[in-house]
């Protein structure tokens, strides 16, 4: 069930340029059911900014009742968030949405996890859970530049990890789509910029591919219809899915991206 909770900040660290890792202590950790779910953060108590910010759950620990998020300092909301320090409380609504289906790949099979920039974080918990299930996990992570890259070492603990940077300052120069061309897999999970998701969906029309989408949100719980996308198979022209409550993870081909 979705909770609204004032969560105490355990730690906040800038782990790469403008990339922050934020860990909170939260009862709502109990309710997390799959990697790829997200939470909605209220970064100011007044009206500036007014709306909550959707941030993915990067990893969680049911015993300690803690979870970790990784976010990029973008605009007003995330900038304010960077100012918060351990001990402060933050208003969190979550867990929200449906995560990645880990049961789609079995022990001994190969899962390919493809992350772009700030789409990388939710793949980390996914990788942990798949590896624990005996799945062979391959990671391909794309970043703008070396200074913005993070978590390569953590992913390496679970399996092969390839990094691409747009400017070539680290790993291979270029896009994740260049790297994955030569990799065999049973199931592909991906999260990142829409253009990357589109390219991947196009590249593998017949494979098992799961995408995590982003959309501007109002409520985050399915009530406002801000975050809808059209279903691919739509006889009436009015069928839709909500990214916040039906997603953010969809099977490729299910919705128009």
């Amino acid at each position: 069930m979705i909770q609204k909770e004032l969560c105490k900040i355990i730690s906040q660290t800038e782990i790469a340029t403008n990339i922050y890792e934020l860990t909170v202590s939260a009862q709502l950790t109990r309710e997390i059911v799959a990697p790829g779910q997200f939470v909605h953060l209220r970064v100011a108590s007044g009206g500036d900014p007014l709306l909550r910010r959707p941030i993915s759950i990067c990893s969680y620990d049911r015993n300690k009742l803690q979870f970790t998020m990784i976010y990029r300092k973008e605009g007003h909301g995330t900038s304010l968030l960077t100012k918060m320090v351990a001990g402060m409380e933050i208003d969190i609504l979550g867990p929200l949405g449906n995560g990645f289906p880990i049961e789609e790949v079995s022990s001994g099979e190969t899962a390919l996890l493809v992350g772009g920039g700030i789409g990388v974080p939710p793949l980390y918990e996914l990788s942990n859970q798949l590896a624990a299930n005996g799945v062979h996990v391959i990671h391909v992570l794309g970043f703008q530049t070396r200074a913005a890259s993070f978590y390569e070492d953590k992913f390496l603990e679970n399996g092969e990890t390839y990094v691409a940077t747009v400017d070539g300052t680290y790993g291979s120069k270029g896009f994740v789509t260049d790297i994955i061309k030569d990799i065999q897999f049973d199931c592909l999970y991906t999260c990142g910029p829409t253009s990357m998701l589109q390219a991947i969906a196009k590249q593998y029309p017949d494979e098992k591919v799961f995408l995590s989408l982003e959309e501007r949100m109002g409520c985050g719980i399915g009530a406002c219809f801000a975050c809808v996308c059209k279903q691919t198979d739509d006889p009436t022209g009015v069928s839709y899915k909500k990214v916040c409550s039906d997603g953010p993870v969809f099977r490729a081909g299910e919705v128009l991206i």
Partner: protein
Amino acid sequence: MSRLNIELPGLTLKNPIMPASGCFGFGKEYSQFYDLSTLGAIMIKATTVEPRFGNPTPRVAETNAGMLNAIGLQNPGLQKVMGEELPWLAQYDVPIIANVAGSVEEDYITVAKEISQAPNVHALELNISCPNVKTGGIAFGTIPEVARQLTKKVKAISAVPVYVKLSPNVTNIVEMAKAVEEGGADGLTMINTLIGMRLDIKTGKPILANRTGGLSGPAIKPVAIRMIYEVSQAVNIPIIGMGGIQTAADVLEFFYAGASAVAVGTANFVDPFVCPTIIEELPNMLETLGFEHISECQGRSWKKHEQFAYHRA
């Protein structure tokens, strides 16, 4: 003794707090958080004759102390609302106000006629003020005579009282209010959103796919208060006030201005518990201020003090 119960045409309200149309879907999502029977009423999402997908995304953009939306009246259409959403809501002890939308007069009439017969629909809210639909709509909300005519026709076929939702995007809101009162409206709901826009700094283009959107949230509260203050002195039908309400104090401000009940929109997105929280806090706030009943607050900004003889403060 309840300090909060209110009687309005068609509506016996446990308390005057209800979620605003479009900000609460058909209630399901919020039923995860609390018992919907705690609410005074529920204004359900706009219903049109046919199902509508609405506008392309992005459909929301944030502004200072507010947000823009251009959902475009997405809804499952009259049949599904009648067949699924309203029956589902019937499990709760809460009157429903059905928000009726359309592009042409016949649309409104078709929806109003049928939906007003649903057993838990106690009133209609005629949405003549949605800023996010291309065809029609706009004239209904800005030309007094057109609004009057539509109100009259809907009144003629509605099985329940009709509230008309006014747009703030007009030169003279009192004129609009009087016109729909003349048309037979049982009440007013106001305000709908102001028309606004945000541009992306990097691309220079509108953030909303629909370009413009409706501005809601605390930013518009002073405009809502001013309009309710003016209109409540000029008409003899009750007003359900809305626009930026977040707290119990905001609710009182709307009552002082002249509202007889209020709706909470955008704030539900910020805090899904906002309605029950306000309902819980109101009695204490009334007590502190020396009111025995919330109705004593109504119109206090302009009523003469003699009318408040029973008021202790």
